[in-house]
């Protein structure tokens, strides 16, 4: 069982969360009308073997989306931050 340190709630079981996939893909702006960025965002993944940044939704907890650093080979878990903070970092 994976366990994540939710920034709001503390260490919680995987069963309180839903998986949201790769957190490195960047959603195009709503006004983006070009095909490629949307195709890329919706369908293509790096699918790395090793460190992976990924979204989890603390749906049976504080309802916050978080970004988890997790290794897809060892399942070792690194930092867990609120998605809204991670996205801000991405932008800056």
């Amino acid at each position, binding site marked *: *069982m994976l*366990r994540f340190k939710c920034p709001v709630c503390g260490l919680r079981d995987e069963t309180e969360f839903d998986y949201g996939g790769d957190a490195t893909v960047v959603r195009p702006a*709503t006004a983006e009308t070009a095909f490629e960025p949307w195709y890329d965002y*919706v369908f293509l993944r790096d699918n790395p073997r090793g460190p992976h940044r990924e979204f989890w939704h603390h749906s049976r907890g504080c309802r916050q*989306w978080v970004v988890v650093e997790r290794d897809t080979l060892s399942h070792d878990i690194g930092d867990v931050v609120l998605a809204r903070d991670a996205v801000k970092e991405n932008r800056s």
Partner: protein
Amino acid sequence: MTMQPNRLAVGGRIDRGTTFSIRFNDRDIVAHPGDTLASALLANGVKIVGRSFKYHRPRGVFSAGVEEPNALVQLREGARTEPNSRATTVEAYPGLVARSQSGWPSVDTDLGAIVGAFARFMPAGFYYKTFIGPFRNTRWWMFCEHFIRRAAGTGIAPAAPDPDTYEKVNAFCDVLVVGAGPAGLSAALAAARAGARVILAEQDRDLGGSLLDQTVGDTWLRATVDEVASLPNVRILTRTTTFGAFDGDVYGLVERAWDHVDVPPPHQPRQRYWVVRARSAVMATGAIERPLVFGGNDLPGVMSASALRAYLNRYGVLCGRKIVLFTANDSVYATAGELARAGAAVTIVDMRSDLPEELRSRTAAAKVDVLAGFAVVNTHGGKAVTAVTVAAVSGREGGTKGPVRRIDCDVVGVSGGFTPTLHLWSQRGRKPRFDTDKLAFLPDGSIPTLVCAGACAGADTITDAVSSGFAAGAKAAAAADFVGDAGALAPPKLADDGWQRGAMLISAVRAPDGEIPAKSFFDLQHDVKSTDIELAHREGYVSVEHLKRYTTNGMATDQGKTSNVNALARLAELRGSPIPAVGTTTFRPPYTPVAFGAIVGHEIGRHFRPTRLSPIHGWHAARGAAFIDAGSWSRPRYYPVSPGEDVQAGYIREARHVRAAVGLVDVSPLGKIAVQGPDAAEFLDRVYTNMFSTLKVGRLRYGVMLRDDGFVFDDGTTARLSETEFFMSTTTVNAGKVMARLEFLLQTAWSDLKVQVTSVSDQWATIAVAGPKSRTLLQATCGAADLSAQALPNMAFACAAIDGVPVRIHRMSYSGELAFEVYIPARYGHSAWAELMRVGEPFGVAPYGTEAMGALRIEKGHVAGGELDGRTTLKDLALERFASTKKSFAGCVLRKRPVLEDPTRPSLVGLMTIDKTVSIKAGSLLFPATGDIAGHGDGHVTSTTFSPTLGGHIALGLLARGPARLGETIRCVDFLGGTTVNCVVTAPCFVDPEGVRQNA
């Protein structure tokens, strides 16, 4: 009661003062509290307990623990029967009933043993080479398979549901200690003294591990157990197997709370499943003695040497009178002395020729014969061992040279060394390393939160086990941030025989002719012989995994606990490679088999999944509604007016009534989301395909959402409560998904939008009031509000009160009738419904269920589950008009992909049967009026109903080029039901397409 021929008058940890009877194969067996089924059988002289899987050879008890490969029994009877129970771990209790699992007419005289005569035709993997048959189909194999299946398998599954209950416990601790032998007890003590909260889990009934099988060390054991038990921060779980180690330092444990009695006491669970989240853990799981492989090493009477010691010292059972101990290490010498003192004539056959003087002098004192430099080559005896043949060892590889000697005996104790129990550590994704010194696979220190101690980590003696356990306990406590002073712990005072000292790893003993005897078994349960391993090697199945799968070595219920290392050694020998180069198979959970019931706990029957009920459910139940599962909800399907009214009659009556008068339907399961904030309108513009920023306060608008890939995701009606507040509704099934998606967008890509979304699905009960008299009814119920057509036009809402409770009335129609949805605070839902029913009596109000609701919506051509199947687009569903061209929205780019724009895609149509008495089945395929009916057709039928309004059967369907085919006759083919129904293609809306009724 019969005598117990092998029970000693004194000694052991059993309660001789109490005697009870158990039944094995219809025979009464005497047992005492403290016995296992196996110890009782051995005490009573029962030799044959089972028959082997393949050749039906007689098999007796081999071990005294969880590794038992032979003595598997069908325990208990009736609904409580348990196949494949290991007699060595089943605690004896009064009234215990067990049977052998194979053997006809009996386990002692098994005609199935005739198979043994054909053994030469059944080498490893013979079934891959035969039963292929001359025909190019599967029939010959399936004919043969029928008989193979009947011959395979072992125990019999219960035929009735389990009468017992189970419990799940979620537990947390700082240090979990697995195993309460000398190392585990020491670890628990050290960790607890350091201040950590400790859970000590032991699979046995008693604490002590290998010390329980010895006569000395009790003082230390008692003192240590007493101290551990006295500490308030230690929880001791006995009869508890830690079956799996998982990510996140989570461990799965099963406590056999009441398996040691006939029937658990009232309200007590049979077993308890513990999910332990530990900050760190100590694995002190010991080691399992390895058999030696020689001719006839499977005969009853051939046993693990350590088991002989356990039966002697723990159970007061002397398994034989003339005992040969065959070994290649020091561990049996203490056992030999104890067996001799108990009255057995003991001969040690030790493959090593240069024995330490200390061992020789001990055996001399104990009157034990020692044949150093000899090996057991073969056993003799039909159904139990009566003698062994020994020969002098020659060379290192298990070879012998003549002449041979015969030694009479009734038991052979074997010790090929010990295999550390690494399962939990390995389950964390680690590969053990082979230690050429200890001749064993050992763990490394690569998991900071799982410290290995004692024999499983290679500790040689009990003294070592205690010191390594104590250090591990302190280390694990420190890993959980407890660094208090643990003090010291002195080891017990006992003779320290190294468990692996002097060990040799011999794959199999060879007869003086250089051959490994034919009946040399590696896997005792699966009858895997040396010749099988050789054949696998010869044919190229040379990886350890291929060997396992081709020969089935290690795939039995013991999962190779006794067989894997010997087979690996044999393979390494054949390959001419060292063991580390050959590797080992992967350890998988569970460590020992785990009952389904334990893991399931309370989540059985209705409680397998939660059932959601509307706040008005009680009313429906009292009214005698027929309920149906809709996703996680239980909803009224229809309300039978008489006991005999079936669903067909019921929904037609209810739907007709709505169109004629007024009906109420409980739509509380709809998803409801409060969307609030200065950017709420902008937000909705982005998630819905159509515009919401233009929606006026007080009005409602139907909206559609797409997935990002451009397919329709969900639909619903949203009200604008104020400039900055919207009240969104979603379909029932997607309520959770929509909410999660809105939160995702707001917390990630659109975190600059000032919007808060809150699920309010459970805060509101919702009643749809539909029918020509709906306004009249509502006006009568909430007198003060003006619900007239002018004050409350379609797609607008008004605030009102029912019985003093503020409610909101949305004027909108799903049925096509004049209709309203009344939103009531959930706790008043039931009373509001009752009030509407009371007030509505003069107007003939009647409740209607989901079936009538479906009929009404199909008549109106509204899309629902059958159409919103995740593969349809706006165009497919005739909803293209809801795609705004003035703004971008989620999915607006990818919905333009060429295949999705293809004009020939199946799209929404209505279907009306030409013969009005004939119904259509949803899921029928659509074909043109003429031509072949093959392939995928022109589309399919998505929803069907009888239309009370039209007096005929109608349907919605997705038909290629549908809108261009109105008026065409097509065939709806239900291949499965063998029917073809001719239909006319119509527009999806069958009733009141102009909307006169709903706009009234």
